């Protein structure tokens, strides 16, 4: 029956729209949360202290080591630890070079390590020349070339060697860290060893990580640190926000996603609106019969809205379902995907607007309909 085809057409339009309006923002949210995932991974410190010119987490403006002692002296500080973060070139066993994101942790406490250790322990960093590599880096960019041409690289294992700035580094552990915007492998080591790997410069301290004393308000402490040191200090949430805002305002990511979401909305609205309208036109005689028999416009409006709600719910359900399926299917891939409940509200509102629009243009036709058409042959 032709009507069935129309129904499927409307539902497909709505499914498409709700899929785009759910899946694209999910990727967007996932991607944007990567901008600050290094901060999220490093959960322990309450406050990050840095140069005032730093705009986001990967924007390193080193400090002098002496700043660490000034911060330690401020009241309300439970502890303050140094953190090195920098891009360094590693020479692989086959002689090729790979830039790595090297993280140097406080030698004594090893605060700031990766969130999850897959092999080995963080304590293994106390052994000489030791480094811990993240699993993604170990299997991909730091892997040894496959003996078979075109084959997968052989993953870096515990005991393997690297060369960082002509100095030997031995892999003692494999970690799992959340992906960030930076695609370089993560290499964790101690602060002093990181300094020895880094080119000799006067300033090498990237961040000072601070824990507040119990009962100390974190934001209040950031104000005190700023006042006492002239440095920038952010609570963990503030630093994430700073980083997130930087990427929002200084990259094309939001615009690109905005365009595809808007396009999905428009295309969905056009398909659904058009098919819904055709559907109404084809059944216009039935509306005429009901009108002749004394049905009010309000009742006809309710009937059309009911249809719209019905197809809208089915389309929305399918779109959201497909998005969830997509997220599930890509969960182990490099693709960013986050599906907070707010997205359901967002795409639900979008689909509702499309349905109301589709019902409205049909409604105008039905409102203007002369019941006298019922006697026309």
């Amino acid at each position, binding site marked *: 029956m032709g009507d069935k085809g129309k129904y499927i057409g409307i539902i497909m339009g709505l499914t498409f729209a709700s899929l785009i309006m759910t899946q694209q923002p999910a990727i967007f949210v996932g991607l944007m949360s990567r901008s600050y995932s290094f901060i999220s991974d490093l959960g322990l410190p309450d406050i990050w202290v840095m140069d005032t010119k730093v705009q986001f987490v990967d924007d390193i403006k080193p400090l002098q080591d002496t700043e660490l002692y000034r911060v330690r002296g401020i009241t309300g500080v439970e502890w303050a630890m140094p953190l090195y973060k920098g891009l360094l070139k590693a020479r692989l066993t086959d002689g090729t070079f790979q830039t790595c994101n090297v993280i140097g942790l406080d030698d004594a406490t090893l605060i700031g390590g990766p969130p999850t250790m897959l092999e080995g322990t963080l304590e293994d960093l106390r052994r000489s020349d030791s480094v811990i590599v993240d699993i993604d880096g170990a299997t991909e960019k730091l892997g040894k070339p496959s003996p078979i041409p075109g084959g997968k690289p052989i993953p870096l294992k515990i005991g393997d060697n690297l060369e960082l700035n002509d100095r030997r580094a031995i892999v003692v552990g494999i970690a799992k860290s959340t992906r960030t915007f930076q695609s370089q492998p993560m290499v964790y080591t101690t602060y002093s060893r990181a300094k020895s790997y880094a080119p000799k410069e006067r300033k090498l301290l990237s961040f000072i990580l601070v824990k507040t004393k119990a009962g100390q308000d974190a934001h209040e402490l950031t104000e005190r640190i700023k006042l006492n040191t002239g440095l920038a200090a952010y609570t963990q949430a503030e630093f994430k926000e700073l980083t997130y805002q930087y990427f929002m305002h200084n990259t094309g990511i939001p615009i690109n996603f905005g365009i595809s979401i808007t396009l999905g909305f428009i295309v969905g609205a056009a398909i659904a609106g058009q098919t819904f309208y055709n559907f109404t036109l084809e059944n216009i005689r039935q509306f005429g*019969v009901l009108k002749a*028999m*004394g049905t*009010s416009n309000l009742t006809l409006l309710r009937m059309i809205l009911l249809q719209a709600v019905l197809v809208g719910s089915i389309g929305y359900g399918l779109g959201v379902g497909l998005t969830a399926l997509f997220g599930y299917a890509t969960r182990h891939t490099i693709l960013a995907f986050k599906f907070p409940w707010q997205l359901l509200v967002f795409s639900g509102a979008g689909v509702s607007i499309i349905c109301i629009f589709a019902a409205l243009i049909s409604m105008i036709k039905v409102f203007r309909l002369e019941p006298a058409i019922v006697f026309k042959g």
Partner: protein
Amino acid sequence: MSLAVRCQNLTKTYDTGGQIVTALSNINLDIPMGELMMLVGPSGCGKTTLISVIAGILDQDSGICELFGENLQRLSSKEKLKFRAKHIGFVFQAFNLLPALNAAENVAIPLIINGMNRHLAVRKAIELLSQVGLGERWTSLPSQLSGGQQQRVAIARALIHNPRLIVCDEPTSALDHETGLNVMHLLKSVALQNDRSLVIVTHDARIFEFADQVAEMDDGHIINVKNAPLRT
């Protein structure tokens, strides 16, 4: 004798992009209560236009049309809807049943429009369907019924709310002769009860015999009204 319909000096023109077509010119017609009036005449003479005005679904340009003493043009559009819902039943050439609803649901529509609870309305519809010989078929969709059966369902729909006037446009012309006669018998026997009046537009000469009066139209005029013409 009280009148179901009284038309006085009715005129109606259509404006088809600059060209004015006079569909009704100076129509005077009385339909007594309890009678079956047939409107006959060549195609395009204005029959459909006239019953549309009589049924209150089309506004005349001038003249007066009263139904049971009520001038519909004096009513607000809401009152007019109510009036139609309550007092008028429709039968169409093309049946015009709603394809997604089964026979009983189709028949129940006028009751539901008049505010009856859906369940009760469908129960009453099933009762009436058995009176028109379709008691067993109440769950069928229109597409599962023959033309004659569909027109029986349509007649039941036109009757269910006990309207005072039933208007039919070519009710038999989509049916074969035998079925057409059956439908006319049904209309005559079931519809024409309780002082109810019927107006039937037709050019099917074979059914003239069912009329109490036949009004002959040509070119927007009524050229004569005959009483029970060919009754045998």
